């Protein structure tokens, strides 16, 4: 865990860098998550006072969007597409085998902190499904072989 002063300073920098943008909250949240891997609860009052919003409004925005996390993810994040085009190519079965192999369900992290498994609804790889994203890298025609990439 970062020292809280260091964290506050970094967030202040991010807030400053987004000064003057129209509708700055999403870019700010992306930048904070980029810096820390998640949006710490302690950032909420700082963001709120900077943007003259209530803490509830900032919390409401963070909790609305699937992308923003309130706690760190595992070392690797494996996203599997669950949408229709990938389903027609067997995505459900692949996801079932991957869940069994990892021993976790959607939105869970393995006990060793190695892998977080998340559903995603479409990566735009609908003609080469099932699709996956491993730590931001795209994988087409994915099967449980993708697990080798998160075992490292």
């Amino acid at each position, binding site marked *: 865990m970062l020292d809280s002063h260091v964290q506050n300073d970094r967030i202040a920098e991010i807030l400053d860098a987004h000064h003057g943008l129209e509708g700055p*909250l999403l870019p700010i949240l992306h930048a904070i998550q980029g810096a820390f891997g998640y949006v710490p609860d302690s950032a909420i009052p700082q963001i709120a006072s900077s943007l003259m919003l209530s803490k509830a409004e900032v919390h409401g*925005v963070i909790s609305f969007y699937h992308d923003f996390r309130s706690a760190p993810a595992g070392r690797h994040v494996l996203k599997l597409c669950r949408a229709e085009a990938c389903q027609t190519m067997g995505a459900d079965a692949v996801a079932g085998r991957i869940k069994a192999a990892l021993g976790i369900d959607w939105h869970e992290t393995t006990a060793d902190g190695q892998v977080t498994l998340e559903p995603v609804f479409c990566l*735009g790889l609908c003609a080469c499904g099932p699709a996956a994203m491993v730590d931001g890298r795209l994988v087409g025609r994915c099967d449980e072989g993708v697990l080798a990439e998160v075992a490292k």
Partner: protein
Amino acid sequence: MKVFVPLDSAAVALGADKLAEAIAAEGASRGVDVQIVRNGSRGMVWLEPLVEVVADAGRVGFGPMTVADVPGLFGDLAAHPKALGLVDELPWMKGQTRLTFARVGVIDPLSLDDYRAHGGLVGLDRAKAMTKAQIVAEVTESGLRGRGGAGFPTGIKWKTVSEAPGEQKYIVCNADEGDSATFADRMLMEGDPFTLIEGMAIAGLACGATKGYVYIRSEYPVAIRVMEAAVRIARDAGVLGAAFDMDIRVGAGAYVCGEETSLLNSLEGKRGVVRAKPPLPALQGFMGRPTVVNNVISLASVPVIMAKGAAFYKDFGLGRSRGTIPLQIAGNVKRGGLYEVAFGLTLGQIVNEIGGGTASGRPVKAVQVGGPLGAWFPPSLFDTPFGYEEFGAKDGLIGHAGLTIADDSTDMLRMARFAMEFCAIESCGKCTPCRIGAVRGVETLDRLAAGDSSAIPLITDLCNTMKSGSLCALGGFTPYPVMSALTHFPDDFAPAREAAE
């Protein structure tokens, strides 16, 4: 030696980055000077990664390439096991009318010189010499309708914004392409970003808007990277500037933000909750000011309309569906990818002739047209011509022109349940029929699956409530996949009961 290796997400997902490295390394080890251009995709996803080598006769294609196929590129090209011949002569390419996608896969996406050399900026230059009203009239005359799904005439939307009073107006590009089976926006942004920039600049001139935003979903990292780079290049070259400038914004994983009013809320930094209309975004949109919200393909079709004239564009198509449509053929299909063609092909031609049937080789059971909110069409409706009104008449929609092909192993009750589950996950929560109805829909379909046929009138009634009681298409159109599955595939909705009998 000049080689094209796509940077397109689909090509990358199938190994294009490793291929580009391998080609560079092989060239270096052989002492051959290799120029690698990372282009967009030609749209033949089943052949990706598709590598092209420039030869005297033209660009020769090789695909689907693996790293093991790389050394062969430095030998006798004709004898290469993955050789496809001249890419422009392939049936998939020759059958198309590429207007919006004319440059995608052809040029270096981040070379403004390449863009100009292939007809780029001609439309913007012409627009600069016209009045606002003349530009609006040209776009209206072309018959261009919103390609995001709603099909609203683009020119009429522009007219409203153009004539609205206001010091500051905006052009917002909806690049939150969340529908399964759609990837045209992604391919366009990755393969020819300047076309979108030019279309937005023309929209800015037509409407008196000086500021634009492209709202791209976070699931598209490559498109975000390419668009951000293209905006910087366009700004440095003076294509963007005081008259019209734009920024890229990144979504955060909410499907509903593809709906224009929730997109505007998200852009303003709020929860992506749908707004009631009126007020129309054209009058009170981003920050309460007059705003054009157009889909990527709508805006990217404007440069060719302005360059070649409304009459040229309008000549393609059928009925009230004018111009071309980039079909996205996806799911369980032999030849999947992007195929731009005039409106009017039948669904059967698209699925069987262009797509080649299923990848699994099993019979086609159903095709979902228009994404997760579109209806499932059985083969008995394969004579439906591809057009807005034509699909509407069959209780369907063309949406963003994505097609998910499913083979006969697909359980349609399960697909109907997924539609409700997806709606429940992605509902913004504003309308009760969507927020709660989708949850009840999952439960009701589970009752059906358990053999309780009394749930059929209930699900029908629920779908009607959602249809008429939701502000936006998420709650309003989720009934399409559900009811089309129930109507066309009733056998799938009575498995447990039959088993019991």
